[in-house]
């Protein structure tokens, strides 16, 4: 039986909600209720919520009438009360479980749609209409879809990573460039080429799943500005996430907005279409894993593919890094914070040096991000170590970050040339009461006050000089 320690281990990371949930919570009740009319949307949102939320939804799903709050909370163990309350608040914000002090009951629209999702049936067509078998052309295999998604996605990332280095890789399409610019991952300075920003550098070190949702979230914000119907956009994304990899779906039944979306999503590598006018499309792994924690690009990280061969980095206590990779993208990302020594067809050797890490830090990448990147991409051989990364190296990376922060700058005013020591003391005391003194030197009769205290101190001095005169 799992002990209490495993509970805290398993439950704390889950308290970080999915990136999409805050966005959904900011939507109006009307929008959400319209979204909940589609079983596939309910289904996907259900998957995005935490395990406790899911269990609460399930407990209430098959009940016809509302149950008293006390009945439900009788199931909660005292130590879990906090988590339970937090889960209820999340559900209330999503308008799935309206907040009430007496009874608990699911939003009727959500309940009806989600029941339909679980049992099947109805005629909502929300899980995507499969296309008729086409005898003339063979359907795409999973491998070709994966290759396509990977190519599209890496084009985007590669473009970002090499923009800072002057080389010119293949440009992604205009829509993608606009999205990158819009999301602040890249900027354009006076008509010159796009440059990656510090947010962009941080973005590169995220897992593909997070990167995907980051971009999609930006896409949603953009959709709002483009006057697209958010419900249509969201429900299309959710529909994609419930589809089967390697199956073709028909575009019939899609609204105009959704057909327009197909074009954008094709650029990101989420869907595949033979040609723009084609009446059928296939979702790629990027799309079908939207609501799961499966790696969205299984072949992107390992040389042989499969979730187990994800890691490729070996880090030694002498700061040497051996990266078993033949992917230019991964090499480029590593190049952000290591000094390359040798490159072989399937191996890159480099060093973590003070200069290389400081370069990364000045690009806006934090020490924690470097460490977490190394951790997530650690070679299976490294996984035998405990702790995973050598402590000395981890500490040194953090120390290098601290080095940057040795100097703290603050704006303010220097007060000096006081007529007498009594004057000086008097003003200083007043400033101290306001808690705005940053530095003082009694022998030289001067002190430094922060910016927001200046008006008060100035007024005080003026009142005093006027009064003295």
């Amino acid at each position, binding site marked *: *039986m*799992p002990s*209490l320690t*495993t*509970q805290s281990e*398993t*439950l704390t*990371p*889950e308290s970080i909600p999915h990136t999409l949930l805050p966005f959904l919570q900011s939507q109006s009740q009307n929008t959400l209720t319209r979204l909940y009319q589609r*079983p*596939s949307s309910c*289904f996907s949102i*259900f*998957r995005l919520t*935490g*395990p*406790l939320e*899911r*269990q*609460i939804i*399930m*407990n209430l*799903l*098959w*009940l016809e009438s509302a149950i008293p709050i006390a009945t439900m909370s009788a*199931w*909660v*163990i005292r*130590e*879990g009360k906090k*988590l*339970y309350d937090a889960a209820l608040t999340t559900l209330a914000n999503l308008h799935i479980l309206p907040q009430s002090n007496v009874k608990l009951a699911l939003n009727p629209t959500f309940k009806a749609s989600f029941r*339909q*999702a*679980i*049992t*099947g*049936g*109805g*005629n*909502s*067509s*929300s*899980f*995507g*209409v*499969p296309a008729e078998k086409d005898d003339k052309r063979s359907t795409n295999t999973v491998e070709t879809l994966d290759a396509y998604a990977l190519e599209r996605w890496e084009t985007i990332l590669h473009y970002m990573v090499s923009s800072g280095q002057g080389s010119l890789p293949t440009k992604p399409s205009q829509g993608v460039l606009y999205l990158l610019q819009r999301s602040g991952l890249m900027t354009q300075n006076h008509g010159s080429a796009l440059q990656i920003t510090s947010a962009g550098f941080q973005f590169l070190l995220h897992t593909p799943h997070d990167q995907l949702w980051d971009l999609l979230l930006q896409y949603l914000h953009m959709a709002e500005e483009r006057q697209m119907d958010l419900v249509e956009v969201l429900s299309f994304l959710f529909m994609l996430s*419930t589809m*089967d990899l390697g*199956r073709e779906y028909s575009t019939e*039944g899609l609204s105009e907005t959704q057909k327009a979306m197909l074009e954008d999503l094709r650029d990101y590598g989420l869907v595949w279409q033979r040609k723009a006018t084609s009446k059928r499309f296939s979702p790629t792994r990027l799309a079908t*894993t939207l*609501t*799961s*924690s*499966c790696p969205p690009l299984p072949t992107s990280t390992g040389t042989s593919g499969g*979730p*187990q061969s994800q890691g490729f980095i070996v880090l030694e206590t002498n700061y040497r890094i051996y990266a078993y990779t033949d992917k230019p993208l991964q090499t480029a990302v590593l190049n952000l914070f290591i000094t390359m020594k040798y490159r072989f067809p399937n191996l890159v050797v480099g060093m973590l040096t003070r200069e290389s890490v400081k370069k990364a830090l000045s690009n806006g990448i934090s020490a924690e991000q470097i460490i977490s990147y190394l951790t997530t991409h650690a070679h299976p051989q490294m*996984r*035998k170590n405990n702790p995973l990364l050598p402590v000395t190296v981890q500490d040194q990376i953090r120390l290098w970050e601290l080095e940057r922060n040795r100097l703290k700058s603050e704006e303010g005013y220097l007060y000096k040339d006081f007529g007498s020591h009594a004057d000086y003391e008097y003003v200083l005391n007043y400033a101290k009461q306001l808690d705005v003194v940053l530095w003082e030197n009694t022998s030289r009769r001067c002190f430094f006050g922060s910016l927001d205290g200046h008006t008060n101190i100035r007024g005080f001095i003026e009142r005093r000089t006027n009064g003295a005169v």
Partner: protein
Amino acid sequence: MEKASHLSVILDLSPTQWHLSAQSSNQYPLSIHSFLSQLLAFLNAHIASKHENTLAVFGAFPGKSVMLYSSTDPVADDVPPADANSYSSFKVVDFTIVRSIMNEFDALGNLDEEPPCALVGALTKALCCKSISAHFHSPNAVEDPAVLPDPRILILSVSPDLSTSYIPIMNSIFSAQKLKVTIDVCKVYGPDAVFLQQAAHLTGGSYIFLERRDALLQYLTMSFLSPPALRQVLAVPKQDKIDFRAACFCHKNIVDVGFVCSVCLSSNHILFYVVKLWFTYMCTVFCQPVPVCSTCR
């Protein structure tokens, strides 16, 4: 993100018991049809909870145990094509399970006398299933992403205890403990099952006797859907009274007072795991006083 979980379900599919269960003389008659439809909703809910959740379903038929469905198996060719109104995995699960059960029932034919249900066979198969036994083979299972934490087995039982199967059940319980598998038991029909109570108790699972049989789905969802980690927050009812009686090894009767061989007892008592269990695990239990057992003699 939290890890996925594995669920193995063992269905007790004894035709006689299900016939009795559907009789309208019961307070809440439950036919196998309504049982299956509620069960499928429950299984769908498990799959819905997480994309990576895995599922295996075993059937205990008279004299035979069969694996009805496993999410790791490739999808059969004759599954009806997906339609726009349901999630395709649900369709595969539901179709495969119902078809396998029908096939097995057809294969049973007209038996004059029904052999007892092969519950132990199904339980053993469930324990050997790859998702569960992988725990045992890889020592650093926590790091291996292919191994799911907290596997559990849910037994839906309708048949009464079979005292001859006491020893194999006990052995299964001990292997389950070793594999850190939680066994949950739902007694859908019939009297309380002593051995299954012990199975649930010893593996940290819960044993629930279905009182309102018309509310099967609600019972299943509230008690058995949550993985063990979540049960630390949302409690799942456990029994306060457990029947610890053992079956004697000579006549396979459930005995209130058991007698043990003085030699084995004296040599083994340090290794015993649970006090009440040492009778059964380390020693042979007899229904009458024996000075020295045959092995020791």
